[in-house]
């Protein structure tokens, strides 16, 4: 093993005149968090709608919801990224397509949209599992009380379902942060991409990837503890922990 360790590398100037390597990694971290959080907001909204729709009695709505989930779960995230980046603009009408292609931060926007849709399918699966794990009596009681179906969902079903699925949703949130690394394939300079470019310019492979790994682990630890706190505060009285859907993935 004759590898030249040089941990001082982080305080040396990075090429591009933007400051040190440490600052470059931090800017990567910011991009990772920005892509992850924006995509997460989008996924929560879309996923909740699709997941709820999949539990309604309407057959065709359930079918559309199932199709939505299957579409986003059966294409690799990387290929979806390429499709949003290269294919979708071709389908949009001329001026919109060329406007999108000439946006300065197009890779960032594309990454958020792609990751948002991808994660929304997974969120939808969790929301559906959460709603289905509630006893049927809950919605029957709502109907018996004279609530409309919308009121039953808004006031009885969803508030319980969302609290039940906090643990699986936590891992989905960590997934969206990790999956934001796929944005580097279309040129977003997030954390992994910054570590890679640091390795290419400085040849300090293991320092660069160690730093990135530590940052990812730190995000994980912080999020897990925060969510454990929220989970304890919002636990539904009288229920033992009921899991969400067991879905494979990263």
């Amino acid at each position, binding site marked *: 093993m004759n590898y030249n360790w040089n941990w001082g590398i982080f305080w040396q100037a990075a090429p591009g005149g933007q400051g040190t390597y440490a600052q470059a990694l931090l800017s990567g971290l910011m991009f990772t968090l920005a892509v992850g959080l924006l995509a997460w907001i989008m996924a929560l909204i879309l996923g909740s709608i699709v997941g709820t729709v999949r539990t309604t009695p309407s057959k065709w709505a359930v079918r559309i919801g199932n199709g939505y989930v299957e579409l986003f779960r059966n*294409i690799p995230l990387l290929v979806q990224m390429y499709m949003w980046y*290269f294919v979708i603009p071709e389908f949009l009408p001329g001026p919109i397509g060329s406007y999108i292609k000439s946006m300065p931060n197009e890779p960032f926007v594309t990454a958020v949209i792609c990751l948002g849709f991808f994660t929304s399918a997974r969120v939808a699966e969790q929301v559906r599992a959460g709603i289905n794990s509630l006893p049927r009596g809950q919605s029957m009681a709502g109907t018996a009380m004279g609530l409309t179906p919308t009121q039953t969902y808004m006031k009885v079903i969803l508030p319980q379902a969302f609290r039940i699925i906090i643990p699986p949703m936590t891992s989905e949130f960590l997934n969206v942060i990790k999956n934001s690394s796929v944005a580097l394939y279309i040129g977003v300079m997030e954390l992994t991409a910054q570590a890679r470019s640091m390795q290419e310019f400085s040849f300090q492979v293991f320092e660069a*990837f160690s730093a990135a790994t530590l940052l990812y682990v730190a995000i994980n630890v912080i999020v897990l503890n925060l969510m454990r706190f929220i989970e304890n505060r919002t636990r539904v009285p009288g229920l033992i922990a009921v899991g969400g859907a067991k879905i494979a993935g990263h």
Partner: protein
Amino acid sequence: MFGNFDFDVIARTWKYLFFTGMTFTVELTLMAMVGGIIFGTILALGRLSHFKWLAMICATYVNGIRSVPLVLVIFWFYFLVPYIGAWVIGSPTPIPVGAFTSSLVTFILFEAAYYCEIMRAGIQSISRGQVMAGQALGMTYFQNMGNIVLPQAFRNMIPILLTQTIVLFQDVSLVSILSITDFVGAARKIAERDGRQAEMYLFVGIVYFVICLSLSMLVKQLQRRVAIVR
């Protein structure tokens, strides 16, 4: 809508895409699945071990791997494997390792963490009475695990293990960052050579969708068939 599209590019290159690219993807998926399930089962046994230190090492490994993105792990091992190889052989310089070996090692070690969690859940779902009955018959730990617990746990978990393998099949696409010619890598080479990204990636997306959807439907059917009736 398809006015500017030139699907002839696919007719010209499909042999390359499937025979070079898809073959690599499928081979890597199958070998990583076998290696990952074996190593993952060992990790699961380690996590459930009575030796605290062993359980802790395995848990740290699994949680560590699970908290970093696959892309970063691919980079790690791409640079690390030559050094590990040098260390194993005792050579003073890093030994060059082929793209296939490097990515195979990566995927076995990475997916093992996920297979481990599945196998752990499977082992824990076996009732304690089964283990106790084995002990009462005078079986050793390994006889008990090998003859009683693991066969049942494995059978219960086959559908989830296969679903994870579909995810692995999709994840193999990420190795194209190392200029490896997997299915996506092959498509990217052609797309960049001919400037036909839109057609190529649309085609790649459809191929993946058809394969993965059929596989997951097969898994659902299998799930109904292997379920142990209690």
